[in-house]
């Protein structure tokens, strides 16, 4: 029986030239529209196509699943099948290969539906060790899809792989190599990283095996670069670029590119070979390469890969080679102008893929002004192309062109088209590219126009990109401001248009700048005063207004329309609509007013004295009101003038908003808008400090409480807790509950070790970052973030950055911590660096837990029970009964309790098998005494843990922490 496709759905590809871009416009059969649960059909027709050997039982099972009318029915059917398979696997009767294969396939299908599979691995290993190809193939597939780090299993798998690699049967060898490439685990790298290079370069290896071996090695090199040995084979691998078989060249080029990125010097010889190969491809007639020609484009994949490889190097030094490469690039640019050889989108996509890669190389070399300008003109044409994809890519590519000194001016000529794209593109991701390009092409000559356009776009921009645009506008306005009145206007406009998206960094920054430049202070005061007169103004404006008038209100007080009293009344009219932090800021502005304008002292004192201030439910506001009032009453004018002096200029450092944008986008994605654009050699200039031994250690007080001086200083450099969306690693977190030193995080590239010391309420963590690779990490930075709640409970915070961490090197960072009061959450260490061109983002939960601030307390049995009774209130005690997760070993348990930080009290508990401990948690504000008791029950393999402390939250948290350790 032949396939009857109309019965069960539309074909993915439709024949005929008419359908080029989207296939979705065809009618959809009910079959496809309905989810698999809709019972519009009583039985599913199984496709009758069955290549190779069909497994009927599998097909029936898949149909059953598709005929399930509800999620519940599906789960029921799956559970039934799982039970069946389990019993078959456990049964006494040995299963034949076919059945085993069928059941393993069913498990695989169930896994792919999104269910967890926790058995069948052993059977899969059996299958892959079988001599029958059909069984071997399924065994390998199961392992490739459901990788399990179970080390015993990996040993068995490796054994099977070893046999297949030694079999000299190319089909078996390929299966084994595919499996290594798919799993790519460290254990496999350890076992095979030595063997695969010799397979790759051996003279008698089949082409298809060479291809698999090359990419297998590439994968191992990516996951475990330290395990792939360099050696004699590297020279021979380069010569694969000359291979007759284009498939081998295609696979080998990827491998060589990866290797050349790490050690460019070892693979320098690949430049001339790659240029020669590329030259042969671009000058070939489209039929020369036979099946490697794709829609009339000669070997597009290989061309792109060769152009990528050449981007690992500067322009060739040899003049002949250099001109040959230039010819290639010119040919590619010329072809873009030729009429298309086919109307199919595949033709133009493949052709333009090569073109864009060639342009990337031209930009990378950044040395041939003619090519750069030609590239820019070509991209300019694409900016108005009817294909959205091309417009998107042209905008993206032009961003990098904008940073070359040769093409910057040429890019600028397209400003109107880009602005138009911003206004008319229907796809937000294209508009986003337009914003990026405007940002990249901005300089002093067009800053006003670009900022104005971005501001007007902001009014209608998608919510998802507003914050980023705000940051960009703020940066451009600051960077290219000639007169700072324009800068102040721009930022106030930003707040007016998109106040909700103006992050703290932005308004902190405007205040920094106004404070640092006395030529703009009067204007700023006047402008915020006017802006505040609007009936509804954003809270961020109130913050900026409060701060600036508090500092510089005197500069406009001469005008009767903005007399001190008017200024004060204006600010105070906003007071009741604002949140607590803003009110706190306004109170500080008021006390500054008392210093600036003695004539409003009485009015302000009345406000401070009112019940709504002095008895405010918020402790911060109440404290400020009380302290400011007292200060204004008792301090002499001199003291007042000293305490409330104008803020000193901020030290100049990197703009905190720029840092924020970099974190948001990743440094690599941010075009360099610096005046010193990239120089001729293609490398960007580094003016950074390269002292990698430089240790950074400073504590920033994040609590801006007035008791530290009635200053308005808010910490403008601290990071808000919005870090990039990286999943935070907590893997090793719980291991640090009972110990202070060890490895907290490790991946293929980086190892992070910790050494910590705690004394009373203070702690210090030494963080060691080890580069495990042989290649540099660039722009390495780390900073600590924590939730807002946490910030008020423990003090810490710092940023460290190193321009370079050499391969194999280790650097150290010191974190200082102070426990202010008890806390639950833990801070997060965020790390960013570039490795081999990609940005790495890592977030690790730092093991700063409450029990770290324990001081052990020795006491007698009598004292212990007396205190135990005193702490008898129900909320003071927390108890947990739980199953042992580790063997119940008395010595280990003792060590853990000691590691937890309490003193272990012998002979206190009448039952010698029980453990009791005592200690005091030190926080800045208080000390909390803690008693604990752990009762093991060896027979039931259970524990009962009881904690008694004077504070409910402390008991709770300590119980959670310790309860997971046994």
């Amino acid at each position, binding site marked *: 029986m032949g*396939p009857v*496709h109309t019965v*069960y*759905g*539309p*074909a*993915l590809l439709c024949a005929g030239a008419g359908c080029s871009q*989207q296939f979705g416009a*065809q009618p959809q059969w009910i079959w496809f*529209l309905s989810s698999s649960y809709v019972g519009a059909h009583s039985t599913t027709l199984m*496709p009758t*196509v069955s*290549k*190779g*050997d069909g497994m009927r039982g599998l*097909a029936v099972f*898949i149909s059953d699943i598709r005929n399930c009318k509800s999620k519940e029915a599906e789960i029921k059917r799956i559970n039934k099948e799982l039970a069946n398979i389990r019993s078959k696997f456990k049964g006494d009767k040995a299963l034949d*290969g076919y059945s085993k294969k069928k059941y393993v396939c069913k498990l695989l299908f169930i896994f*792919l539906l999104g269910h967890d599979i926790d058995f069948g691995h052993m059977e899969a290993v059996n299958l892959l060790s079988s001599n*029958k*190809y*059909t069984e071997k*193939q399924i065994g390998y*597939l199961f392992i490739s*899809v459901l990788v399990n780090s179970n080390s015993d299993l990996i040993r068995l798998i490796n054994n099977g792989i070893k046999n297949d690699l030694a079999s000299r049967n190319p*089909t078996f060898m390929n299966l084994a190599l595919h499996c290594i490439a*798919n799993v790519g685990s460290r254990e496999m790298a350890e076992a095979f990283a030595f063997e695969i290079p010799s397979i790759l370069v051996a003279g008698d290896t089949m082409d*298809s095996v060479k*291809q*698999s071996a090359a990419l297998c090695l*590439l*994968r191992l090199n990516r996951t475990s670069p330290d395990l792939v040995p360099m050696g004699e084979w590297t020279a021979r691998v380069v010569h694969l670029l000359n291979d007759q078989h284009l*498939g081998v060249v295609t696979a080998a080029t*990827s491998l060589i590119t990866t290797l050349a990125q790490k050690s460019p010097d070892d693979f320098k010889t690949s430049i001339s070979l790659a240029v020669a190969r590329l030259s042969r491809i671009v000058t070939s007639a489209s039929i020369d390469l*036979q*099946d*490697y020609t*794709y829609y009339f484009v000669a070997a*597009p*994949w290989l061309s*792109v890969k060769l152009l*990528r490889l050449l981007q690992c190097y500067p322009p060739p030094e040899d003049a002949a080679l250099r001109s040959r490469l230039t010819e290639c690039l010119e040919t590619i640019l010329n072809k873009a102008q030729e009429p298309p050889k086919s109307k199919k989108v595949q033709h133009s*996509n*493949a052709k*333009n*893929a090569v073109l*864009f*890669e060639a342009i990337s190389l031209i930009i990378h070399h950044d040395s041939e002004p003619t090519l750069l300008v030609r590239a820019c003109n070509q991209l300019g044409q694409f900016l108005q192309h009817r294909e*959205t*994809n091309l*417009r998107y*890519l042209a905008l993206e590519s032009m961003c990098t062109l904008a940073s070359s000194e040769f093409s910057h001016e040429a890019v600028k000529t397209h400003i109107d088209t880009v602005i138009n794209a911003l206004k008319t593109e229907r*796809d937000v*991701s294209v508009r986003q590219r337009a914003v990026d390009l405007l940002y990249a092409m901005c300089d002093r000559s067009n800053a006003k126009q670009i900022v104005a356009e971005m501001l007007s776009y902001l009014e209608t921009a998608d919510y998802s990109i507003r914050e980023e645009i705000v940051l960009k506008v703020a940066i451009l306005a600051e960077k290219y401001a000639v007169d700072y009145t324009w800068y102040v206007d721009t930022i106030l406009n930003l707040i007016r248009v998109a106040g909700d998206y103006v992050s703290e960094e932005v308004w902190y920054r405007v205040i920094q700048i106004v404070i640092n430049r006395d030529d703009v202070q009067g204007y700023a005061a006047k402008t915020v005063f006017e802006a505040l007169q609007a009936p509804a103004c954003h809270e961020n404006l109130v913050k900026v207004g409060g701060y600036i008038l508090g500092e510089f209100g005197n500069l406009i007080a001469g005008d009767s329309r903005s007399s001190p009293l008017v200024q004060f009344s204006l600010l105070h009219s906003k007071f009741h609509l604002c949140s607590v932090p803003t009110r706190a800021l306004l109170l500080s502005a008021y006390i500054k007013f008392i210093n600036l304008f003695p004539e409003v002292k009485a009015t302000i004192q009345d406000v401070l004295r009112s019940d709504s201030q002095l008895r405010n439910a918020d402790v911060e506001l109440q404290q400020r009101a009380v302290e400011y009032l007292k200060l204004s009453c008792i301090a002499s004018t001199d003291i007042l003038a000293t305490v409330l002096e104008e803020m000193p200029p901020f030290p100049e450092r990197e703009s905190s908003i720029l840092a924020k944008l970099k974190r948001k986008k990743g440094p690599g994605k941010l075009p360099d808008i610096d005046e010193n654009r990239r120089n001729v050699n293609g490398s960007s200039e580094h003016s950074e400090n390269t002292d990698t031994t430089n240790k950074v250690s400073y504590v920033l007080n994040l609590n801006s409480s007035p008791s530290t001086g009635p200053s308005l200083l808010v910490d403008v450099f601290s990071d808000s807790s919005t870090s*990039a969306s990286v*999943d935070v690693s907590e893997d090793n977190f719980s291991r640090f509950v009972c110990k202070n030193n060890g490895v907290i995080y490790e991946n293929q590239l980086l190892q992070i070790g910790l050494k910590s010391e705690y004394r009373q309420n203070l702690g210090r963590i030494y963080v060691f970052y080890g580069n495990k690779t042989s290649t540099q990490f660039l722009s390495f930075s780390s900073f600590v973030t924590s939730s807002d709640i946490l910030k008020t409970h423990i003090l810490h915070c710092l940023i460290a950055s190193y321009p370079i961490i050499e391969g194999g090197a280790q650097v150290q960072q010191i974190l200082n911590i102070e426990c202010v009061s008890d806390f639950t959450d833990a801070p997060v260490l965020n790390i960013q660096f570039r490795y081999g*061109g*990609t*940005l790495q*983002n890592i977030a690790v939960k730092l093991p700063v837990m409450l029990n770290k601030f324990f001081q052990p307390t020795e006491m007698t049995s009598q004292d212990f029970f007396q205190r135990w009774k005193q702490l008898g209130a129900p909320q003071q005690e927390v108890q947990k009964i739980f199953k042992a997760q580790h063997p119940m070993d008395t010595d280990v348990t003792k060590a853990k309790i000691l590691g937890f930080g309490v003193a272990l009290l012998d002979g206190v508990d009448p039952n010698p098998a029980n453990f009791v401990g005592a200690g005091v948690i030190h926080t800045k504000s208080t000390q909390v005494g803690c008693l604990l008791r752990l009762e093991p029950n060896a027979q039931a393999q259970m524990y009962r843990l009881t904690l008694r402390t004077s504070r409910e939250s402390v008991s709770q948290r300590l119980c959670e922490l310790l309860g997971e350790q046994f």
Partner: protein
Amino acid sequence: MQFMLLFSRQGKLRLQKWYVPLSDKERKKISRDLVQTILARKPKMCSFLEWRDLKIVYKRYASLYFCCAVEDQDNELITLEIIHRYVELLDKYFGSVCELDIIFNFEKAYFILDEFLLGGEAQETSKKNVLKAIEQADLLQENTFSSGMRC
């Protein structure tokens, strides 16, 4: 390439291939987020988007979405054509492939993909060579299968 996902218009995953080590939990989260993001996009929109720190390249063929995640420096257009070549390979092998072929013969879809892409890079871009490899394997299957039947 970091991973490739095939999913239906109802958001059901039909095939997933990961070229970077990630836990099951992370894979599920990524698939869920990405499927939602792409299904929310309109038909005429651009095939590329920035997503986290990756570039996503996707295209819809009838009822199936093919979606690849590539890195910052990778070429979007050539990735789009990787998708197309894979669809062509499936089409040639199954003969007018449709979603159901991939559901019922998911293992074949994986085998074809492994011959075409390995470690996230194109291994063999010639349609003939890839299909030859698969057909040889099928032949081997039938032989072993029938010999298995005999004994």
